[in-house]
């Protein structure tokens, strides 16, 4: 359940799960449905993580929010789950079975009286970049993170909390829910086991300077494509060329943008092939005649996912090119993008001109920015190494690039690993 009162300074549970994306949500819910107490920490104002920003899942092309809704229902009715948002682990001490965790709560500036009625937003004069849409649009400085945000409460951009103009918002609230003087708080959680489900972030595509992201408007990344396709995204679901809104006649997908590359991410990000094929279906849905060009080294669609690859290959205007894109340029007159793909064996370079290109950028574990505590062993890429139950238990992409279903399998298993760590002590 959500919090309806200010959080106490000391709380207890069997398991603490860090990260409120689909993996962390799953570990928390599965733990609670065994009858164990669990605390779910999320550093953002709302849980749902990366999947909440996706339009559809491969291979079913179903909306992630469908599963999130069921999971939210499970969270709402469970007396065993406490969800703390804007919460991060500050430090951990103790040993398996008896951890003491200092949790820092960043002020939301909106308290538990908020009904999400939206009156504050109407009068708010300040805007902020909407990171949920990767900065493609803006929200007000007081905002609901997205349509299915949980908890369904507004939040104030910390950069604006001190701004005089925000007082107008506070005055517009009939419920006394806006508290611009809210202070950070540190609380202590006593738990038996720790699960790390901090997930991933997209590789910074500007680092792959030969692929033109950040230089050319019509080069975007796969995560941005999800937002364009989403009905709750910056374009209400319309996919069009970023520079001029032109309709798409030819689009390119550049696989392994950073992944499988010694200079960037030397590992495979496991989902990008299928994600690009899925995004190609978004384009096809809106543009029955558009040409789709996908450049790959190996198409990786394991297990039954092969069916999805087989299915999209039926599309006569979907062209698969074996070759690594090594250079991207822009035609200054048309804004078109030219992809130069090299056959790695023959060295032959093929040029393809498209309206826009999507870089299939890979996954970087968030543990790179915030390493887990307790001397948890990480591999050279920052993923949590296996058999690490000396420290925290990993769930989902914290340990390796996985697709959503595999992440959830892993997160379900992590619930049991945590319960057993708690029992061993």
């Amino acid at each position, binding site marked *: *359940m*959500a919090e309806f009162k200010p959080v106490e300074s000391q709380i207890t549970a069997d398991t603490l799960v860090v990260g409120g994306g*689909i993996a962390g949500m799953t570990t928390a819910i*599965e733990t609670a*449905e*065994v*009858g164990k107490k669990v605390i779910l920490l999320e550093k953002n104002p709302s849980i749902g993580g990366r999947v909440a920003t996706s*339009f559809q*899942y491969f*291979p079913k*092309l*179903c*909306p992630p*929010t*469908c*599963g999130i809704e*069921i*999971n939210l229902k*499970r969270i*709402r*009715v*469970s007396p065993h789950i406490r969800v703390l948002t804007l919460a991060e682990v500050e430090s951990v001490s103790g040993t398996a079975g008896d951890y003491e965790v200092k949790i820092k709560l960043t002020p939301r500036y909106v308290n538990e*009286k908020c*009904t*999400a*009625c939206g009156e504050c937003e109407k009068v708010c004069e300040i805007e902020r970049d909407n990171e949920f849409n990767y900065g493609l649009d803006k929200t007000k400085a007081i905002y609901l993170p997205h*349509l*299915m945000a949980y908890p369904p409460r507004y939040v104030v951009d910390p950069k604006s909390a001190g701004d005089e103009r925000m007082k107008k918002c506070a005055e517009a609230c*009939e*419920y006394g829910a806006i508290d611009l003087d809210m202070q950070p708080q540190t609380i202590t959680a006593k738990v038996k086991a720790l699960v790390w489900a901090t997930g991933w972030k997209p590789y910074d595509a500007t680092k792959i300077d030969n692929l033109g992201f950040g230089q050319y408007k019509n080069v975007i990344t796969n995560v941005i494509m999800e937002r364009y396709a989403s*009905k709750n995204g910056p374009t209400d*679901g319309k996919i069009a060329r970023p520079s001029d809104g032109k309709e798409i006649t030819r689009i390119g997908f550049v696989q392994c943008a950073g*992944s499988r590359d010694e200079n960037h991410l*030397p*590992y*495979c*990000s*496991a989902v990008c092939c299928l994600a690009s094929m899925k995004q190609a279906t978004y384009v096809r849905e809106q543009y029955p005649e558009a040409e789709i060009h996908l450049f790959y080294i190996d198409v990786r669609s394991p*297990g*039954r996912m*092969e069916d999805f690859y*087989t299915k999209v290959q039926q599309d006569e205007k979907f062209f698969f090119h*074996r070759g690594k894109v090594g250079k991207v340029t822009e035609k200054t007159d048309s804004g078109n993008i030219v992809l130069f793909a090299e056959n*790695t*064996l023959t060295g032959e370079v093929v040029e393809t001109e498209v309206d826009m290109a999507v870089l299939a950028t890979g996954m970087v574990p968030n543990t790179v920015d915030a390493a887990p505590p307790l001397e948890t062993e990480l*591999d050279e890429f920052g*993923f949590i*190494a*296996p058999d690490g139950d000396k420290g925290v238990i990993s769930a989902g992409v914290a340990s390796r690039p996985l697709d*959503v*279903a595999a992440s*959830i*399998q892993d997160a*379900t*298993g992590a619930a*049991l*690993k945590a*319960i057993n760590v708690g*029992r*061993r002590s």
Partner: protein
Amino acid sequence: MDTKVGVYICKGCDIAKSMDVDKLVEIGTSEGGAAVCKSHDILCSQEGLDLIKADIESEGINRIVVAACSVRVFPELFEFGKDTLTDRANLREQVAWCHEPNDEDTQMLAEDVIRMACAKVKVIEPPEPLIEETSKDIMVVGGGITGMTAAKNASAAGYKVTLIEKEDKLGGWATKYKKVFPKHPPYKNLEDSGYEQLIKDIEADGNITVHTSTTVEKTAGQPGKFEVALQNGSPTELTVGSIVLATGWNPYDPEKLSYLGYGISPDVVTNTQMEEMVSNGGVKRPSDGKEIESIAFIQCAGSRDQDHLPYCSSVCCRVSLKQALYVREQYPNAKIYVIYKDLRSPAQYERFYASVQEDEGIFFTKGEIAGVEKTDDGKIAVNVEETLLGEDIQVKADMVVLAAGMVPTTKVDEPEPVAEGETAEAAEGEGEAADGKKEAEGAESGAKILNLTYRQGTDLPTLKYGFPDSHFICFPYETRRTGIYAAGCVRAPMDLDQSSRDAHGAALKSIQAVESIGRGAAVHPRAGDLSYPDFFMQRCTQCKRCTEECPFGALDEDEKGNPLPNPLRCRRCGVCLGACPERIVSFKNYGVHMISEMIKAVEIPDEFEEKPRILAFVCENDAMPSVDMAGVKRMKYNSMVRIIPLRCLGSMNTVWISDALASGFDGVILIGCKKGDDYQCHFIKGSELAEYRMDNVREKLKQLVLEEERVEIHELAITDFHRVPELFDAFLETMETVGPNPYKDM
């Protein structure tokens, strides 16, 4: 205890600004029959909650209508103990936020919303959990890495485990592998699978009973009390609460790989035969025991082939990389060729691939195999087309290894599985005997592993290619047989590391199942639901619809065709309730009568008022949130529509449509989730069953001499909130064209 209704109307969030709340208070008392009806400025405030609590204590209120926001917003705030039932009347997202404020029609809508909620809470009862004496023991079938991992970890959590293995020893495929590919950093060095230690742990574990050389002859009963008969020379019987199915895989039949040269020479072997060779003294040319100078690995032998296994077997690329290293270790100078379509080494296994690529004697060639033949000099020639160089090449080697794929042990060749799409066709008139074709989930697997005594088949229904995998991305442990969870390669092709992770997940779910069932609660997706269906058997006509349509095989049948409910298998979707033409199925808090009362509670203006009325049955899982979000987005649609959420559109009983038309509704719109191969129904076939029942509905309309257009069925995904106004408004337009329901004033 008598029911005593309290109605509490919130005035916040534009509600009071959009409608006459005092009038609603009056309706709650006069028509809704509420003992107490009050409004409050902010019902979700402490003061608002205290107001309700005080009435519960002083007035004995035990049925509460919270007329405020959607039930999706903080339902946990309005929980007042198990004897008090709360329902929401959604005046915010579905009235104030999506209709003209202070309009006559908005007000009428709000009044009906109150009436419906009152009608509902008056007839529902708090569910009493069905608590039976159940077992919390877990049976794991399959003693490979997956099964052993599941058993060990379930035991570690304090549960007694019975582990069944058909072979005479534990270990499964792992016992045949010299090494496994690297899951630890730096992801370069082959590793041990660790199966010996696992066997030792299992044997030393007092909570685990191992039965080797044993098969499952019969699994009867239901979760919490599965009665299992084991066979191992002599029969053994046991009772378990839940089951993990970890029976793994078989290699694809090499006899079917003759197109890749299998059978032309003993020097063409499969990857599993290669593994055996390595474990038994090393690699030699099979035909003459000669040392190997060259060897070719052919990837996707059977896999990714529409004529064989259309799926990718996921591990074979890495297995060949590993076997290439075996060869290298034994023969420092051998030439090793790997011929592949796409080299698949996901995640950090890319580093393994990269390290193998550093070996200058290992050649990777992308291409399609045109043929494999014996040459005069006793070698095997592999002809490769469509290479990257654009030319056809021939690779000659001392021996060839076919990277053959995995087939789940649940796969049976005969009889052919029934295609999913065929199950719900063949409309039948009411009361006709069933031909078994419209089963919600057919006995599509012919496997004989668990030998369930279920009406709907002997084993877990398979999804595709014989794998009993979950259809749901978000819920990989979703199972169509409550309390039975597949794990490892029987569920999908996967490597040992993923199998081990999967084993933990399945073990957790099996623990959850016994714990939930032990306290009378449902498991996913209605986790924690204490209600269960009651069958009033005296009126049963043995039509078998409920037994056929139950998506979870909860209902068996006696020889006369009477349903034999197994409530512990039940997932509370209400499909049986929707199926029953005699209306004998009900839950304490959800039933035919309840919805009928809600329908009748709506005030129907006479035809001269020109205010059509539309009834919408909406799936509460996807469509309802979508309708709510249309409200949050402040999208406007007509206020003629009255919405009733259903647990699943499959629980829609066609009598409700008759009720609605008889009470004067002009039309009924049904909104469910996506059906077909990529269905999204959390209860498998709900939307499809509703569609199937539409045939009965059309028949009924014909009998009543009403236009077919008066009932429509639609699919709406949770993300389709933008379509909500269009759906409702288009239907209203249709109703205006068709004209008023002639039964309106009768």
